[in-house]
Protein backbone atom coordinates (compact mmCIF):
# COMPACT_ATOMS: atom_id res chain seq x y z
CA UNK A 1 0.00 0.00 0.00
CA UNK A 2 2.74 2.43 1.01
CA UNK A 3 6.27 2.12 -0.23
CA UNK A 4 8.93 4.69 0.62
CA UNK A 5 12.32 4.43 -1.08
CA UNK A 6 15.22 6.43 0.39
CA UNK A 7 13.09 9.44 1.20
CA UNK A 8 14.99 12.52 2.27
CA UNK A 9 13.63 15.91 3.23
CA UNK A 10 15.57 19.06 3.87
CA UNK A 11 14.41 22.59 4.51
CA UNK A 12 16.18 25.74 3.59
CA UNK A 13 16.63 27.97 6.61
CA UNK A 14 18.21 31.12 5.27
CA UNK A 15 21.25 29.85 3.39
CA UNK A 16 21.61 26.66 5.36
CA UNK A 17 19.65 23.55 4.53
CA UNK A 18 18.40 21.51 7.47
CA UNK A 19 18.25 17.78 6.82
CA UNK A 20 15.22 16.42 8.61
CA UNK A 21 14.75 13.03 6.92
CA UNK A 22 17.93 11.26 5.92
CA UNK A 23 16.85 8.36 3.71
CA UNK A 24 13.84 6.52 4.95
CA UNK A 25 12.69 3.31 3.27
CA UNK A 26 9.50 1.80 4.51
CA UNK A 27 6.76 -0.61 3.45
CA UNK A 28 3.31 -0.61 4.94
CA UNK A 29 0.76 -3.18 3.83
CA UNK A 30 -2.91 -2.49 3.38
CA UNK A 31 -4.85 -3.13 6.59
CA UNK A 32 -1.89 -2.54 8.91
CA UNK A 33 -2.13 -0.46 12.09
CA UNK A 34 1.23 1.27 12.47
CA UNK A 35 2.49 3.50 15.26
CA UNK A 36 5.37 5.90 14.68
CA UNK A 37 7.33 6.90 17.75
CA UNK A 38 10.49 8.80 18.42
CA UNK A 39 11.87 11.80 20.25
CA UNK A 40 10.62 15.28 19.59
CA UNK A 41 12.14 16.82 16.52
CA UNK A 42 13.12 13.49 15.03
CA UNK A 43 11.03 14.08 11.92
CA UNK A 44 7.85 12.11 12.61
CA UNK A 45 5.48 14.86 11.49
CA UNK A 46 7.61 15.58 8.46
CA UNK A 47 7.39 11.93 7.50
CA UNK A 48 3.63 11.92 8.04
CA UNK A 49 3.22 15.00 5.88
CA UNK A 50 5.03 13.28 3.05
CA UNK A 51 2.97 10.10 3.46
CA UNK A 52 -0.15 12.30 3.53
CA UNK A 53 0.80 14.07 0.29
CA UNK A 54 0.82 17.43 2.08
CA UNK A 55 4.49 17.76 1.27
CA UNK A 56 6.86 16.40 -1.33
CA UNK A 57 10.12 14.58 -0.54
CA UNK A 58 13.37 16.28 -1.49
CA UNK A 59 14.69 12.98 -2.85
CA UNK A 60 13.43 9.42 -3.08
CA UNK A 61 10.31 7.80 -4.43
CA UNK A 62 6.95 7.40 -2.78
CA UNK A 63 4.45 4.83 -4.06
CA UNK A 64 0.91 5.06 -2.73
CA UNK A 65 -1.37 2.21 -3.81
CA UNK A 66 1.09 1.33 -6.55
CA UNK A 67 1.27 4.85 -7.96
CA UNK A 68 4.41 6.94 -7.77
CA UNK A 69 3.09 10.15 -6.24
CA UNK A 70 6.49 11.75 -5.51
CA UNK A 71 6.30 13.76 -8.72
CA UNK A 72 2.61 14.60 -8.68
CA UNK A 73 1.53 18.20 -9.20
CA UNK A 74 -0.28 20.17 -6.51
CA UNK A 75 -3.62 19.53 -8.13
CA UNK A 76 -3.12 15.76 -8.30
CA UNK A 77 -1.88 15.71 -4.70
CA UNK A 78 -5.02 17.57 -3.64
CA UNK A 79 -7.12 14.88 -5.30
CA UNK A 80 -5.14 12.12 -3.59
CA UNK A 81 -5.59 13.81 -0.18
CA UNK A 82 -9.27 14.20 -0.85
CA UNK A 83 -9.97 10.69 -2.10
CA UNK A 84 -7.43 8.37 -0.52
CA UNK A 85 -6.33 9.88 2.78
CA UNK A 86 -8.05 10.95 5.99
CA UNK A 87 -6.26 13.25 8.42
CA UNK A 88 -6.65 13.53 12.16
CA UNK A 89 -4.56 16.18 13.91
CA UNK A 90 -3.57 16.83 17.49
CA UNK A 91 -5.19 20.29 17.37
CA UNK A 92 -8.35 18.85 15.76
CA UNK A 93 -8.33 21.51 13.02
CA UNK A 94 -12.08 21.95 12.75
CA UNK A 95 -13.44 25.13 11.14
CA UNK A 96 -14.78 27.11 14.10
CA UNK A 97 -17.70 28.72 12.29
CA UNK A 98 -19.13 25.48 10.91
CA UNK A 99 -21.28 23.03 12.83
CA UNK A 100 -20.03 19.50 13.42
CA UNK A 101 -22.15 18.33 10.49
CA UNK A 102 -20.83 21.00 8.12
CA UNK A 103 -17.27 20.25 9.16
CA UNK A 104 -17.76 16.61 8.30
CA UNK A 105 -19.27 17.62 4.95
CA UNK A 106 -16.16 19.58 3.90
CA UNK A 107 -14.13 16.81 2.23
CA UNK A 108 -17.22 15.79 0.25
CA UNK A 109 -17.69 19.37 -1.02
CA UNK A 110 -14.27 19.12 -2.63
CA UNK A 111 -15.13 15.68 -3.93
CA UNK A 112 -18.09 17.21 -5.77
CA UNK A 113 -20.75 15.18 -3.97
CA UNK A 114 -24.33 16.46 -4.05
CA UNK A 115 -25.68 18.31 -1.07
CA UNK A 116 -28.23 15.66 -0.20
CA UNK A 117 -25.78 12.79 -0.25
CA UNK A 118 -23.26 14.86 1.65
CA UNK A 119 -25.64 15.45 4.47
CA UNK A 120 -26.70 11.80 4.65
CA UNK A 121 -23.12 10.56 4.69
CA UNK A 122 -21.98 13.16 7.22
CA UNK A 123 -24.82 12.18 9.54
CA UNK A 124 -23.94 8.53 9.19
CA UNK A 125 -20.27 9.23 9.98
CA UNK A 126 -21.16 11.28 13.06
CA UNK A 127 -23.51 8.54 14.25
CA UNK A 128 -20.72 6.04 13.83
CA UNK A 129 -18.36 8.00 16.12
CA UNK A 130 -21.19 8.39 18.64
CA UNK A 131 -22.03 12.05 18.07
CA UNK A 132 -25.57 11.67 16.72
CA UNK A 133 -26.81 14.20 19.26
CA UNK A 134 -24.14 16.84 18.61
CA UNK A 135 -24.44 17.34 14.87
CA UNK A 136 -25.53 20.97 15.01
CA UNK A 137 -23.02 22.03 17.65
CA UNK A 138 -20.23 24.41 16.83
CA UNK A 139 -16.74 23.11 17.71
CA UNK A 140 -16.60 25.58 20.62
CA UNK A 141 -19.50 23.78 22.25
CA UNK A 142 -17.77 20.40 22.13
CA UNK A 143 -15.24 18.79 24.50
CA UNK A 144 -11.78 17.84 23.26
CA UNK A 145 -12.74 14.21 22.84
CA UNK A 146 -15.89 15.15 20.95
CA UNK A 147 -13.93 17.46 18.67
CA UNK A 148 -11.51 14.68 17.89
CA UNK A 149 -14.41 12.39 17.11
CA UNK A 150 -15.80 14.97 14.71
CA UNK A 151 -12.34 15.04 13.11
CA UNK A 152 -12.38 11.25 12.82
CA UNK A 153 -15.84 11.37 11.25
CA UNK A 154 -14.51 13.95 8.80
CA UNK A 155 -11.47 11.79 7.98
CA UNK A 156 -13.54 8.73 7.08
CA UNK A 157 -16.38 10.39 5.26
CA UNK A 158 -14.81 10.10 1.80
CA UNK A 159 -14.08 6.42 2.54
CA UNK A 160 -10.26 6.65 2.28
CA UNK A 161 -8.10 3.55 2.46
CA UNK A 162 -5.55 5.32 4.67
CA UNK A 163 -5.96 7.32 7.84
CA UNK A 164 -3.08 9.39 9.21
CA UNK A 165 -3.25 10.63 12.79
CA UNK A 166 -0.46 12.88 14.10
CA UNK A 167 -0.62 12.70 17.89
CA UNK A 168 -4.42 12.38 17.90
CA UNK A 169 -4.52 11.95 21.69
CA UNK A 170 -1.86 14.53 22.46
CA UNK A 171 -4.42 17.01 23.77
CA UNK A 172 -6.70 14.51 25.52
CA UNK A 173 -6.78 12.84 28.94
CA UNK A 174 -6.05 9.13 29.18
CA UNK A 175 -9.68 7.99 29.35
CA UNK A 176 -10.66 9.99 26.30
CA UNK A 177 -7.52 8.77 24.56
CA UNK A 178 -8.72 5.21 25.02
CA UNK A 179 -12.09 6.15 23.46
CA UNK A 180 -10.39 7.66 20.46
CA UNK A 181 -8.00 4.78 20.01
CA UNK A 182 -10.94 2.37 20.14
CA UNK A 183 -12.39 4.30 17.21
CA UNK A 184 -9.18 3.76 15.25
CA UNK A 185 -9.09 0.11 16.18
CA UNK A 186 -12.63 -0.32 14.86
CA UNK A 187 -11.79 1.44 11.60
CA UNK A 188 -8.71 -0.73 11.22
CA UNK A 189 -10.79 -3.85 11.78
CA UNK A 190 -12.93 -2.70 8.86
CA UNK A 191 -9.86 -2.81 6.65
CA UNK A 192 -8.63 0.80 6.76
CA UNK A 193 -4.88 1.26 7.06
CA UNK A 194 -4.10 3.44 10.09
CA UNK A 195 -0.84 5.23 10.89
CA UNK A 196 -0.57 7.00 14.24
CA UNK A 197 2.25 9.20 15.47
CA UNK A 198 2.44 9.17 19.24
CA UNK A 199 4.65 9.65 22.27
CA UNK A 200 2.54 7.37 24.45
CA UNK A 201 3.28 3.67 24.63
CA UNK A 202 -0.35 2.99 25.64
CA UNK A 203 -1.37 4.40 22.32
CA UNK A 204 1.32 2.51 20.43
CA UNK A 205 0.01 -0.71 21.91
CA UNK A 206 -3.07 -0.46 19.72
CA UNK A 207 -0.82 -0.84 16.67
CA UNK A 208 0.37 -4.15 15.34
CA UNK A 209 3.71 -2.60 14.39
CA UNK A 210 5.74 0.25 15.84
CA UNK A 211 8.30 2.22 13.89
CA UNK A 212 10.95 4.23 15.68
CA UNK A 213 12.35 7.39 14.12
CA UNK A 214 15.50 9.05 15.36
CA UNK A 215 17.35 11.90 13.69
CA UNK A 216 15.48 11.38 10.47
CA UNK A 217 16.28 7.70 10.23
CA UNK A 218 14.36 4.53 11.07
CA UNK A 219 15.77 2.61 14.03
CA UNK A 220 16.50 -1.01 13.22
CA UNK A 221 13.99 -3.40 14.84
CA UNK A 222 16.65 -4.95 17.09
CA UNK A 223 17.48 -1.66 18.72
CA UNK A 224 13.79 -1.05 18.99
CA UNK A 225 13.19 -4.34 20.78
CA UNK A 226 15.87 -3.47 23.24
CA UNK A 227 14.30 -0.12 23.81
CA UNK A 228 11.04 -1.78 24.57
CA UNK A 229 12.52 -4.32 26.94
CA UNK A 230 14.18 -1.65 28.97
Amino acid at each position, binding site marked *: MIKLESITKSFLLGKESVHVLNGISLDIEAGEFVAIMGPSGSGKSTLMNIIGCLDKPTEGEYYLGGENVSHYHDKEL*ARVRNQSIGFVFQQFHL*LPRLTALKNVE*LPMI*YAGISKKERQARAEAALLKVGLGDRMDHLPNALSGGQKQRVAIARSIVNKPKLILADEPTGALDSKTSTDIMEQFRELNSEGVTVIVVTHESEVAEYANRTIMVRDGLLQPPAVMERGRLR
Partner: protein
Amino acid sequence: MSFIENLGMALSSLKAHKMRSILTMLGIIIGVGAVIIVVAIGQGGEAMLKSQITGPGNTIEMFYQPSDEEIRSNPNVFQQSPFKQEDIRVLEQLPEIKRVVASSTKLSTARLQTESADVSTTGINQAYLQLNELKVEKGRGFSSADFLGGRRAGIISNKLQEKLFKEENPVGKIIMVSNQPIEIIGVLEKPTGLLAFGSMEVYLPFQTWRNIFGSSDFTQVTLQAASAEQLQVAGKKAAKLLNNLHNTEKSYQVINMEEIAQGVGQVTKIMTLIIGSIAGISLFVGGIGVMNIMLVSVTERTREIGIRMALGATRGQVLTQFLIESMTLTLIGGILGIFLGWGTSTIVSYFAGWPSLVSWQVVVGGVLFSMIIGVLFGLLPANKAAKLDPIDSLRYE
Protein backbone atom coordinates in the same frame (compact mmCIF):
# COMPACT_ATOMS: atom_id res chain seq x y z
CA MET B 1 -17.78 22.89 -6.20
CA SER B 2 -20.70 24.84 -7.54
CA PHE B 3 -21.04 28.61 -7.75
CA ILE B 4 -24.07 28.57 -5.47
CA GLU B 5 -22.13 26.70 -2.82
CA ASN B 6 -19.29 29.18 -3.09
CA LEU B 7 -21.79 32.00 -2.81
CA GLY B 8 -23.31 30.52 0.33
CA MET B 9 -19.86 30.12 1.81
CA ALA B 10 -18.97 33.70 0.91
CA LEU B 11 -22.15 35.06 2.46
CA SER B 12 -21.62 33.17 5.71
CA SER B 13 -18.05 34.37 6.06
CA LEU B 14 -19.11 37.95 5.30
CA LYS B 15 -21.83 37.56 7.91
CA ALA B 16 -19.25 36.42 10.44
CA HIS B 17 -17.73 39.92 10.28
CA LYS B 18 -20.82 42.06 9.72
CA MET B 19 -19.40 45.41 10.76
CA ARG B 20 -16.24 44.96 8.77
CA SER B 21 -18.14 43.82 5.69
CA ILE B 22 -20.53 46.78 5.84
CA LEU B 23 -17.73 49.29 6.30
CA THR B 24 -15.85 47.79 3.38
CA MET B 25 -18.98 47.83 1.26
CA LEU B 26 -19.49 51.50 2.10
CA GLY B 27 -16.68 52.46 -0.26
CA ILE B 28 -18.37 50.57 -3.09
CA ILE B 29 -21.85 51.79 -2.13
CA ILE B 30 -20.76 55.42 -2.24
CA GLY B 31 -18.70 54.93 -5.39
CA VAL B 32 -21.44 53.20 -7.36
CA GLY B 33 -24.06 55.56 -5.92
CA ALA B 34 -22.04 58.59 -7.02
CA VAL B 35 -21.59 57.22 -10.53
CA ILE B 36 -25.32 56.51 -10.81
CA ILE B 37 -26.21 59.99 -9.57
CA VAL B 38 -23.84 61.68 -11.98
CA VAL B 39 -25.01 59.67 -14.96
CA ALA B 40 -28.69 59.98 -14.03
CA ILE B 41 -28.54 63.73 -13.58
CA GLY B 42 -26.36 64.12 -16.65
CA GLN B 43 -28.73 62.19 -18.87
CA GLY B 44 -31.71 63.96 -17.32
CA GLY B 45 -30.12 67.34 -17.94
CA GLU B 46 -29.37 66.46 -21.53
CA ALA B 47 -32.94 65.35 -22.09
CA MET B 48 -34.23 68.57 -20.55
CA LEU B 49 -32.00 70.84 -22.60
CA LYS B 50 -32.93 69.04 -25.79
CA SER B 51 -36.64 69.28 -25.05
CA GLN B 52 -36.26 72.99 -24.36
CA ILE B 53 -34.67 73.58 -27.74
CA THR B 54 -37.22 71.52 -29.56
CA GLY B 55 -40.15 73.15 -27.81
CA PRO B 56 -43.24 71.40 -26.58
CA GLY B 57 -45.44 69.54 -29.02
CA ASN B 58 -42.89 69.09 -31.83
CA THR B 59 -42.66 72.74 -32.72
CA ILE B 60 -39.95 74.74 -34.35
CA GLU B 61 -39.70 78.47 -34.85
CA MET B 62 -38.96 80.07 -38.23
CA PHE B 63 -36.95 83.21 -38.44
CA TYR B 64 -35.82 85.67 -41.05
CA GLN B 65 -32.16 86.57 -41.35
CA PRO B 66 -31.69 88.89 -44.32
CA SER B 67 -28.44 88.66 -46.25
CA ASP B 68 -26.12 91.67 -46.52
CA GLU B 69 -27.34 92.17 -50.03
CA GLU B 70 -30.98 92.43 -49.00
CA ILE B 71 -30.07 94.86 -46.24
CA ARG B 72 -28.16 97.03 -48.70
CA SER B 73 -30.96 97.10 -51.25
CA ASN B 74 -33.65 97.63 -48.63
CA PRO B 75 -32.43 99.35 -45.43
CA ASN B 76 -35.89 99.10 -43.91
CA VAL B 77 -35.91 95.34 -44.08
CA PHE B 78 -35.86 94.98 -40.29
CA GLN B 79 -38.96 97.17 -39.87
CA GLN B 80 -40.99 94.93 -42.12
CA SER B 81 -42.71 91.78 -41.05
CA PRO B 82 -41.08 88.94 -42.96
CA PHE B 83 -44.01 86.53 -43.32
CA LYS B 84 -46.90 87.25 -45.74
CA GLN B 85 -50.34 85.79 -45.38
CA GLU B 86 -49.71 83.90 -48.60
CA ASP B 87 -46.62 82.28 -47.03
CA ILE B 88 -48.74 80.85 -44.26
CA ARG B 89 -51.22 79.39 -46.72
CA VAL B 90 -48.40 77.73 -48.69
CA LEU B 91 -46.74 76.36 -45.56
CA GLU B 92 -50.02 74.85 -44.46
CA GLN B 93 -50.05 72.77 -47.64
CA LEU B 94 -46.85 70.87 -46.68
CA PRO B 95 -47.77 67.30 -45.70
CA GLU B 96 -45.27 67.16 -42.83
CA ILE B 97 -46.75 70.24 -41.22
CA LYS B 98 -49.70 69.87 -38.94
CA ARG B 99 -50.18 73.49 -38.01
CA VAL B 100 -48.71 76.85 -38.75
CA VAL B 101 -48.96 79.11 -35.79
CA ALA B 102 -48.64 82.72 -36.81
CA SER B 103 -48.90 85.97 -34.96
CA SER B 104 -48.00 89.63 -35.30
CA THR B 105 -47.24 92.02 -32.53
CA LYS B 106 -47.27 95.83 -32.63
CA LEU B 107 -47.01 98.38 -29.90
CA SER B 108 -49.97 100.73 -29.66
CA THR B 109 -52.18 102.54 -27.16
CA ALA B 110 -55.28 101.27 -25.43
CA ARG B 111 -57.70 103.87 -24.08
CA LEU B 112 -60.83 103.90 -21.96
CA GLN B 113 -62.25 107.37 -21.67
CA THR B 114 -59.42 109.34 -20.06
CA GLU B 115 -57.39 106.35 -18.92
CA SER B 116 -54.77 105.04 -21.41
CA ALA B 117 -51.89 102.58 -21.51
CA ASP B 118 -49.14 101.43 -23.87
CA VAL B 119 -49.96 97.89 -24.90
CA SER B 120 -48.45 95.23 -27.06
CA THR B 121 -51.17 94.17 -29.43
CA THR B 122 -50.91 90.67 -30.84
CA GLY B 123 -52.95 89.39 -33.73
CA ILE B 124 -53.14 85.62 -33.74
CA ASN B 125 -54.41 82.99 -36.11
CA GLN B 126 -56.66 80.27 -34.87
CA ALA B 127 -53.85 77.68 -34.77
CA TYR B 128 -52.15 79.85 -32.18
CA LEU B 129 -54.69 78.76 -29.59
CA GLN B 130 -53.73 75.11 -30.08
CA LEU B 131 -50.23 75.76 -28.84
CA ASN B 132 -50.61 78.72 -26.51
CA GLU B 133 -53.55 78.34 -24.30
CA LEU B 134 -55.07 81.72 -23.50
CA LYS B 135 -56.56 81.02 -20.10
CA VAL B 136 -59.32 83.46 -19.26
CA GLU B 137 -60.48 84.13 -15.74
CA LYS B 138 -63.41 86.31 -16.76
CA GLY B 139 -65.55 86.20 -19.89
CA ARG B 140 -64.71 83.71 -22.65
CA GLY B 141 -61.94 82.75 -25.04
CA PHE B 142 -61.95 83.17 -28.82
CA SER B 143 -64.35 81.11 -30.91
CA SER B 144 -64.04 80.10 -34.54
CA ALA B 145 -66.61 82.73 -35.43
CA ASP B 146 -64.35 85.45 -34.01
CA PHE B 147 -61.59 84.45 -36.43
CA LEU B 148 -63.75 83.97 -39.51
CA GLY B 149 -65.71 87.18 -39.23
CA GLY B 150 -62.88 89.33 -38.00
CA ARG B 151 -65.02 90.46 -35.12
CA ARG B 152 -63.83 93.40 -33.14
CA ALA B 153 -63.39 91.27 -30.05
CA GLY B 154 -60.31 91.18 -27.85
CA ILE B 155 -58.85 89.53 -24.80
CA ILE B 156 -56.82 91.68 -22.43
CA SER B 157 -54.23 90.79 -19.84
CA ASN B 158 -54.97 91.05 -16.17
CA LYS B 159 -52.56 93.91 -15.75
CA LEU B 160 -54.26 95.97 -18.43
CA GLN B 161 -57.63 95.37 -16.77
CA GLU B 162 -56.25 96.69 -13.48
CA LYS B 163 -54.91 99.77 -15.21
CA LEU B 164 -58.02 100.69 -17.21
CA PHE B 165 -60.92 99.27 -15.21
CA LYS B 166 -59.69 98.92 -11.61
CA GLU B 167 -62.34 96.80 -9.85
CA GLU B 168 -64.94 97.05 -12.59
CA ASN B 169 -65.82 94.02 -14.72
CA PRO B 170 -64.55 94.83 -18.22
CA VAL B 171 -66.31 92.02 -20.07
CA GLY B 172 -68.64 93.51 -22.69
CA LYS B 173 -67.05 96.95 -22.41
CA ILE B 174 -65.51 98.76 -25.36
CA ILE B 175 -61.94 100.10 -25.33
CA MET B 176 -60.10 101.97 -28.05
CA VAL B 177 -57.05 100.17 -29.41
CA SER B 178 -55.08 102.34 -31.78
CA ASN B 179 -58.25 104.49 -31.91
CA GLN B 180 -60.42 101.60 -33.05
CA PRO B 181 -63.19 100.21 -30.84
CA ILE B 182 -62.68 96.70 -29.48
CA GLU B 183 -65.15 94.79 -27.35
CA ILE B 184 -63.53 92.96 -24.46
CA ILE B 185 -64.73 89.35 -24.36
CA GLY B 186 -62.31 87.99 -21.77
CA VAL B 187 -59.57 88.73 -19.27
CA LEU B 188 -56.49 86.51 -18.97
CA GLU B 189 -55.58 84.85 -15.72
CA LYS B 190 -52.92 86.52 -13.64
CA PRO B 191 -49.59 84.92 -14.50
CA THR B 192 -48.30 82.84 -11.62
CA GLY B 193 -44.75 82.25 -10.54
CA LEU B 194 -42.08 84.27 -8.84
CA LEU B 195 -40.75 86.11 -11.87
CA ALA B 196 -44.06 86.76 -13.65
CA PHE B 197 -44.80 90.47 -13.41
CA GLY B 198 -47.43 90.54 -16.06
CA SER B 199 -47.53 92.95 -18.91
CA MET B 200 -50.04 95.14 -20.76
CA GLU B 201 -51.36 92.99 -23.56
CA VAL B 202 -54.25 92.81 -25.98
CA TYR B 203 -54.93 89.71 -28.10
CA LEU B 204 -57.02 90.03 -31.26
CA PRO B 205 -58.05 87.65 -34.05
CA PHE B 206 -55.65 88.25 -36.91
CA GLN B 207 -58.37 89.62 -39.24
CA THR B 208 -59.27 92.23 -36.69
CA TRP B 209 -55.63 93.07 -36.08
CA ARG B 210 -55.11 93.48 -39.85
CA ASN B 211 -58.03 95.87 -40.13
CA ILE B 212 -56.69 98.01 -37.31
CA PHE B 213 -53.04 98.18 -38.36
CA GLY B 214 -53.50 97.82 -42.09
CA SER B 215 -50.89 95.13 -42.41
CA SER B 216 -51.41 91.48 -43.29
CA ASP B 217 -47.88 90.36 -42.42
CA PHE B 218 -46.83 88.13 -39.58
CA THR B 219 -43.84 88.75 -37.36
CA GLN B 220 -43.72 85.27 -35.85
CA VAL B 221 -44.25 81.86 -37.41
CA THR B 222 -43.97 78.57 -35.55
CA LEU B 223 -44.35 75.24 -37.31
CA GLN B 224 -45.81 72.20 -35.68
CA ALA B 225 -44.90 68.87 -37.26
CA ALA B 226 -47.01 65.75 -37.18
CA SER B 227 -44.25 63.94 -35.30
CA ALA B 228 -40.89 64.67 -33.74
CA GLU B 229 -39.08 62.76 -36.48
CA GLN B 230 -40.65 64.88 -39.19
CA LEU B 231 -39.85 68.14 -37.45
CA GLN B 232 -36.44 68.64 -38.97
CA VAL B 233 -37.59 67.68 -42.46
CA ALA B 234 -40.63 69.92 -42.20
CA GLY B 235 -38.49 72.82 -41.05
CA LYS B 236 -36.04 72.43 -43.91
CA LYS B 237 -38.79 72.13 -46.50
CA ALA B 238 -40.57 75.18 -45.12
CA ALA B 239 -37.41 77.29 -45.23
CA LYS B 240 -36.67 76.23 -48.80
CA LEU B 241 -40.23 76.97 -49.87
CA LEU B 242 -40.19 80.49 -48.45
CA ASN B 243 -36.76 81.24 -49.89
CA ASN B 244 -38.09 80.23 -53.31
CA LEU B 245 -41.21 82.35 -52.92
CA HIS B 246 -39.25 85.41 -51.81
CA ASN B 247 -36.38 84.84 -54.19
CA THR B 248 -33.87 84.77 -51.39
CA GLU B 249 -31.07 82.31 -50.91
CA LYS B 250 -31.26 81.35 -47.29
CA SER B 251 -32.80 84.24 -45.43
CA TYR B 252 -35.65 82.12 -44.17
CA GLN B 253 -34.35 79.61 -41.72
CA VAL B 254 -35.24 77.23 -38.97
CA ILE B 255 -32.99 76.43 -36.06
CA ASN B 256 -30.93 73.40 -36.93
CA MET B 257 -31.79 71.36 -33.92
CA GLU B 258 -29.66 68.42 -34.82
CA GLU B 259 -26.57 70.54 -34.53
CA ILE B 260 -27.66 72.12 -31.31
CA ALA B 261 -28.78 68.86 -29.82
CA GLN B 262 -25.44 67.40 -30.77
CA GLY B 263 -23.64 70.30 -29.18
CA VAL B 264 -25.68 70.01 -26.01
CA GLY B 265 -25.09 66.28 -25.99
CA GLN B 266 -21.38 66.87 -26.35
CA VAL B 267 -21.26 69.32 -23.48
CA THR B 268 -23.29 67.16 -21.13
CA LYS B 269 -21.25 64.12 -22.13
CA ILE B 270 -18.01 65.88 -21.29
CA MET B 271 -19.43 67.08 -17.99
CA THR B 272 -20.70 63.60 -17.18
CA LEU B 273 -17.33 62.18 -18.09
CA ILE B 274 -15.43 64.59 -15.86
CA ILE B 275 -17.67 64.22 -12.82
CA GLY B 276 -18.09 60.56 -13.57
CA SER B 277 -14.37 59.94 -13.50
CA ILE B 278 -14.15 61.68 -10.15
CA ALA B 279 -16.86 59.32 -8.94
CA GLY B 280 -14.92 56.53 -10.58
CA ILE B 281 -11.89 57.42 -8.51
CA SER B 282 -13.93 57.01 -5.35
CA LEU B 283 -14.99 53.63 -6.68
CA PHE B 284 -11.35 52.78 -7.21
CA VAL B 285 -10.57 53.77 -3.63
CA GLY B 286 -13.46 51.57 -2.53
CA GLY B 287 -11.93 48.72 -4.50
CA ILE B 288 -8.62 49.20 -2.71
CA GLY B 289 -10.53 49.02 0.57
CA VAL B 290 -11.97 45.70 -0.52
CA MET B 291 -8.52 44.43 -1.44
CA ASN B 292 -7.15 45.53 1.91
CA ILE B 293 -9.85 43.78 3.91
CA MET B 294 -9.57 40.66 1.81
CA LEU B 295 -5.83 40.56 2.46
CA VAL B 296 -6.49 40.84 6.18
CA SER B 297 -9.10 38.13 5.88
CA VAL B 298 -6.73 35.78 4.07
CA THR B 299 -4.10 36.24 6.76
CA GLU B 300 -6.65 35.68 9.51
CA ARG B 301 -7.94 32.56 7.86
CA THR B 302 -4.56 31.04 7.04
CA ARG B 303 -5.38 28.04 9.21
CA GLU B 304 -8.78 27.60 7.53
CA ILE B 305 -7.06 27.60 4.17
CA GLY B 306 -4.57 24.98 5.39
CA ILE B 307 -7.40 22.79 6.65
CA ARG B 308 -9.31 23.07 3.40
CA MET B 309 -6.20 22.17 1.44
CA ALA B 310 -5.49 19.16 3.69
CA LEU B 311 -9.05 17.98 3.06
CA GLY B 312 -8.51 18.15 -0.68
CA ALA B 313 -9.18 21.70 -1.84
CA THR B 314 -7.07 22.53 -4.89
CA ARG B 315 -5.35 25.89 -5.22
CA GLY B 316 -7.89 26.76 -7.88
CA GLN B 317 -10.76 26.06 -5.51
CA VAL B 318 -9.20 28.25 -2.82
CA LEU B 319 -8.65 31.01 -5.38
CA THR B 320 -12.27 30.76 -6.52
CA GLN B 321 -13.54 30.85 -2.96
CA PHE B 322 -11.83 34.14 -2.20
CA LEU B 323 -12.62 35.68 -5.57
CA ILE B 324 -16.29 34.93 -5.11
CA GLU B 325 -16.14 36.28 -1.61
CA SER B 326 -14.73 39.63 -2.69
CA MET B 327 -17.11 39.68 -5.65
CA THR B 328 -20.05 39.06 -3.33
CA LEU B 329 -18.86 41.91 -1.16
CA THR B 330 -18.70 44.37 -4.04
CA LEU B 331 -21.85 43.04 -5.69
CA ILE B 332 -23.93 43.66 -2.57
CA GLY B 333 -22.24 47.04 -2.23
CA GLY B 334 -22.99 47.79 -5.87
CA ILE B 335 -26.67 46.88 -5.56
CA LEU B 336 -27.03 49.01 -2.43
CA GLY B 337 -25.16 51.78 -4.27
CA ILE B 338 -27.65 51.61 -7.13
CA PHE B 339 -30.50 52.08 -4.68
CA LEU B 340 -28.63 54.95 -3.04
CA GLY B 341 -27.94 56.61 -6.39
CA TRP B 342 -31.47 56.08 -7.63
CA GLY B 343 -33.01 57.43 -4.43
CA THR B 344 -30.71 60.43 -4.26
CA SER B 345 -31.13 61.41 -7.89
CA THR B 346 -34.91 61.07 -7.54
CA ILE B 347 -34.86 63.41 -4.56
CA VAL B 348 -32.50 65.83 -6.27
CA SER B 349 -34.62 65.91 -9.40
CA TYR B 350 -37.75 66.44 -7.32
CA PHE B 351 -36.36 69.56 -5.73
CA ALA B 352 -34.40 70.86 -8.71
CA GLY B 353 -37.19 70.34 -11.21
CA TRP B 354 -34.62 68.57 -13.30
CA PRO B 355 -35.50 65.17 -14.66
CA SER B 356 -33.29 62.27 -13.64
CA LEU B 357 -32.95 59.24 -15.81
CA VAL B 358 -31.76 56.00 -14.28
CA SER B 359 -31.76 53.80 -17.34
CA TRP B 360 -31.63 50.03 -17.16
CA GLN B 361 -28.29 50.18 -18.94
CA VAL B 362 -26.88 52.16 -16.05
CA VAL B 363 -28.27 49.69 -13.52
CA VAL B 364 -26.95 46.66 -15.36
CA GLY B 365 -23.66 48.44 -15.92
CA GLY B 366 -23.43 49.26 -12.23
CA VAL B 367 -24.02 45.65 -11.24
CA LEU B 368 -21.50 44.31 -13.73
CA PHE B 369 -18.96 46.97 -12.89
CA SER B 370 -19.09 46.31 -9.17
CA MET B 371 -18.67 42.59 -9.84
CA ILE B 372 -15.66 43.33 -12.01
CA ILE B 373 -14.18 45.48 -9.25
CA GLY B 374 -14.64 42.61 -6.83
CA VAL B 375 -12.84 40.23 -9.14
CA LEU B 376 -10.06 42.68 -9.99
CA PHE B 377 -9.33 43.76 -6.45
CA GLY B 378 -9.92 40.27 -5.11
CA LEU B 379 -7.35 38.78 -7.42
CA LEU B 380 -4.34 39.71 -5.31
CA PRO B 381 -5.71 38.44 -1.97
CA ALA B 382 -7.20 35.31 -3.53
CA ASN B 383 -3.91 34.55 -5.22
CA LYS B 384 -2.15 35.00 -1.92
CA ALA B 385 -4.52 32.50 -0.35
CA ALA B 386 -4.11 29.98 -3.14
CA LYS B 387 -0.33 30.12 -2.95
CA LEU B 388 -0.19 29.27 0.73
CA ASP B 389 1.63 26.14 1.70
CA PRO B 390 -0.75 23.67 3.37
CA ILE B 391 1.68 22.63 6.11
CA ASP B 392 2.74 26.15 7.02
CA SER B 393 -0.90 27.18 7.05
CA LEU B 394 -1.91 24.35 9.35
CA ARG B 395 0.84 25.40 11.77
CA TYR B 396 -0.13 29.09 11.59
CA GLU B 397 -1.18 30.47 14.96
